[in-house]
């Protein structure tokens, strides 16, 4: 067996085990798989898919709890549409979210706030992975530095159709009182916290902050004039909504 033949065999085996549908594997013979029986192929494919769903469940904990008995039925179509590309849990959870969004175009989500919940669960992990630093709070008043400001890349801005804040922060863990009430949420990790938090803010501030994709340059003298304006900027930074770096 040459290296090329070995790779070709490994590709056949991995692609076969990624296919949960038996009929999709019908054209593959035992010879192609160096003697592995169809029953063993089924077992290995099932073990691999089971581990993948476990990874997804660890990230989309509450969403998968609501999906419950449907989760087993969804596993095979999910794998068929989104084959395994990367091993990390977050990537697989993103794939599963994408799969659910596609599905919900045809099959109405039950409960109806699942799309908002799934997005926010995924966003919380993304927020946790973001890098935070403190700048404004450390500057002296009267400092004449030039600063760049933008919305924090690790913060997630989401307009929810349902007010799921209590579901996310644990005050209503079983979602018994989730009203259909549009809210603007920012998911961020405040500088003083070790876990992400969910903040509900008004429409105008949400729109303003969300529009700050690009850096804008400000004088620290403008930002740090003593009074409410200074406190406002420092609060936005402390909450993890904005990122501030010195101009170089």
């Amino acid at each position, binding site marked *: 067996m040459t290296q090329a033949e070995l790779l070709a065999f490994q*590709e056949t085996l991995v692609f076969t085990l990624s296919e949960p549908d038996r009929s999709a594997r019908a054209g593959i013979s035992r010879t192609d798989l160096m003697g592995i*029986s169809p029953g063993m192929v089924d077992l290995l494919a099932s073990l691999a898919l089971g581990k993948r769903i476990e990874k997804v469940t660890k990230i989309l904990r509450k969403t998968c709890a609501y999906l419950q008995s449907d989760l087993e039925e969804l596993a095979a179509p999910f794998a068929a549409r989104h084959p395994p590309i990367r091993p990390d849990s977050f990537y697989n959870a993103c794939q599963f979210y994408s799969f659910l969004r596609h599905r919900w175009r045809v099959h109405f989500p039950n409960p109806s706030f699942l799309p908002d919940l799934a997005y926010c669960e995924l966003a919380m992990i993304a927020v946790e992975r973001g890098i935070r630093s403190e700048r404004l709070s450390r500057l002296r008043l009267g400092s004449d530095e030039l600063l760049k400001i933008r919305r924090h890349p690790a913060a997630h801005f989401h307009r929810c159709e349902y007010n799921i804040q209590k579901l996310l922060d644990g005050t209503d863990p079983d979602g018994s009182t989730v009203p259909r009430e549009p809210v603007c949420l920012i998911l961020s990790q405040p500088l003083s916290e070790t876990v992400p938090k969910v903040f509900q803010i008004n429409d105008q501030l949400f729109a303003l902050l969300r529009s700050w994709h690009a850096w804008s340059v400000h004088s620290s003298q403008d930002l740090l004039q003593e009074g409410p304006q200074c406190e406002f900027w420092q609060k936005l930074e402390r909450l993890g909504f904005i990122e501030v770096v010195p101009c170089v």
Partner: protein
Amino acid sequence: MHQSYKSCSPPVGIGFRPEAYEATLKNLERFDVLEIMVDHYISGTHKIRERILDLSSRIPVVGHGVGLSIGTAVPPDEFYLDQVAEVLELIRAPWHSEHLAFTKVPGRDLAQLLPIPRTVAAAECVIHNLEIVRKHIPKPFALENITYYFEYSDCELSEQDFIQLICRESGALLLLDLENVYLNATNHGYDAFAFIDSFPKSLVKGVHVAGGTALGALMLDSHDRPVPNQALELLKYLLRTQTPDSIVLERDERLDDFDEVLEDIGRLKAAVSAAAA
């Protein structure tokens, strides 16, 4: 700050799992060593990374990975190797280990350990890949034997000959997973003790033990049960001729029952003492 391994020789510890951080920290004095999965650090959140760094400052650690896929017949991902090297430096791990298996091919990562066909050509691929690993990770490197639920039809070598060929030609050492030896011996009908006897002295750098479950007639490497007595007997037998640097209990599931994990640690330490007597 730790300086050296503690009382038990060889040191006994667990594979650290982020979901069991609080329980691990609370019971840290029960362990002599922790095994850190480098992939947890590489793809982990800030919180997980900080916890790993904190633990590595309190107790000796060894490194272990699942993302390398050394058995794939293409060169390993050199960016990933650099990430691994960096993590090993950060946690001050004296050596690293990976599975003698493949999990992926270009474009698809099954994240499931698959056995490598035991041919000379496949061994040469692994040896070549290990040369690349050595350029990026200048630390002792051990290969772990895995569970396999089937045999390929075209195998040329026995499992022990395959392992020894690769280790001899590459300089890699062996992380001997005794649960996997027990499961493979049970599933494929061979003598586990003779398997252990086949390895030269000082080849075994580390040991893994775990508990599996039965699926019909097949024993699965599920890492969710106490270590079976048969694996403990293999450990006592192994320690007659090998002096591994660490003995690590692998537990991936049912970690909320941490008392069971601690009980296993006690059983492992008792086995080490019995072997020394």
